[in-house]
């Protein structure tokens, strides 16, 4: 039994050696200037021939009324484009959901405002403080709504992405 096992091991070893030598010989034969030149010429002819056939088939597809591979691919590409658009919408919805979740959680739309926004806020606060009929909680809510409003106004002309980024930025810095 050991003899037979040895035989198959030897067969495997000799086979692998022979395979290696044959392959090295083939690689050496193919790694020559003449072969490269031949390939270069042939691939150009081949490409032109294929292109020619493709054009003929495309022309024939009109009277014979059959779709070509290109037609089917165009249709598939439309589906892929739609999928990409849907994905973009889905991402925006996710971002909005995340924002709503954070707002519901009561996280701060923050006190870190720029100079312009701070000035606006001071005006709002002065107004709030002067109005004695508004309770502290109501004042807080009002302040919060106005801060949000301020951000929304500042980004009214920009797109949804930049608005979301701004709101998120405010939200994040508020958490810190």
């Amino acid at each position, binding site marked *: *039994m050991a003899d*037979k096992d040895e035989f*198959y*091991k030897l*067969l*495997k070893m000799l*086979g*692998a050696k022979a*395979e*290696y030598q*044959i*392959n090295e010989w*083939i*690689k050496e034969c*193919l*790694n*020559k*200037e003449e072969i*490269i*030149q031949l*390939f*270069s010429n042939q*691939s*150009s002819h*081949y*490409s032109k021939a*294929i*292109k020619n056939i*493709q054009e003929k088939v495309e022309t024939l597809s009109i009277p014979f009324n059959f779709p070509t*591979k290109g037609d*089917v*691919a*165009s249709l*598939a*590409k439309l589906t*892929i484009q739609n*999928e*990409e658009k849907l*994905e973009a919408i889905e991402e925006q919805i996710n971002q909005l959901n995340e924002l709503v979740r954070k707002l519901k959680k009561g996280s701060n739309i923050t006190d870190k405002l720029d100079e312009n926004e701070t000035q606006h806020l001071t005006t709002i606060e002065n107004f709030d403080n002067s109005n004695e009929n508004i309770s502290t909680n109501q004042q807080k809510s009002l302040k919060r709504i106005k801060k949000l409003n301020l951000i929304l106004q500042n980004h009214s002309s920009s797109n949804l992405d930049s608005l979301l980024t701004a709101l998120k930025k405010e939200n994040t810095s508020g958490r810190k």
Partner: protein
Amino acid sequence: MEGNKEILRWKGFWSVFGGHEPPSATTPRKSIWKKNKTTLWYYPAKKKKFQTPLFLVYSLVNQPFILDLSPNISLIEAFVDEGYDVYLIDFGIPRYEDKDITLDNYIVGFIKKGVQKALTHSKAKDITVMGFCLGGTLAAIYTAIATEPIKNLILTVTPIDFSTVPAYDKWALALRNEKIDFDEFIDTIGLIPANFIEAGVRLVTAPVYFSHYLSLLNRGYEKHYVDKWILFNKWTSGHIPFPGATLKQLVNDLGKHNKLVTGELKINNQTVDLRNIKSNLLVVASDFDQLVPKEQTYPIVELASSEDKKYELLPSGHTGLTAKKGLPIYLKEWLPSRSNPI
């Protein structure tokens, strides 16, 4: 007894031609994101021990089921058993409508998006990106321009420096000197058929290939070996079509101009500079690799800015690193301390 072994040996040998196929990709998984033909698979850890999940990127020329070949011969199963959450981006099988997919699309549209999805899904602070062969090249390109928190980058048999080639140096020279041009051919056929890809890989490695049958005959009496052989053979001959637009970029930008090393490669108009890689880096290469020689794998170690980097050269071939039982020792030693143990 001896007669029995011989009967089993030949029975095992002939069984591979009978269409019997053992199950593969058996590790439990679920799809968490799909785009075109790409799927992001999630393999939950059996008992989670690390906060940093793994994100696997496989090559574009073959199918990633080699990473989960069969029970007990599966890298993914080994990761899951060790306590890692694993995400695998499976690019699927391109069809004619995908012929215009570029390298930029793969990096930004699929890998970057996939990493973002994996981070959101796992709620992890950072992630380990692991690339195999050409998938490693994509992973390195992505990491160099990533804005996501990539804690570790692991590259397995990954070609980076194309100034040296495994064979056909005169062809490489002719390509660089513009004596041959593949663009017209690639543009004409659009999607490179799977058998062209297989022929290309075979030409570089072994144009004549029969030694695997001798290996089968040598151990045909072992059922588990025959099963592994069948699956492995299915994988080695299971090449997939390749989008022409991506191939053109790889041939011209990497093969011809070696732009990944010179720092001239652009993805979505963004320069890919490997010096931007600061993640912990593990580069694994094989000493007897006929497809990706070690000279192609090493330069990233010098180019990357990572403070923590390691180069591991193993005595195996191109595919010997993935289809094994359990985690390879070099990963067992390197990865846990860099994956935020719980």
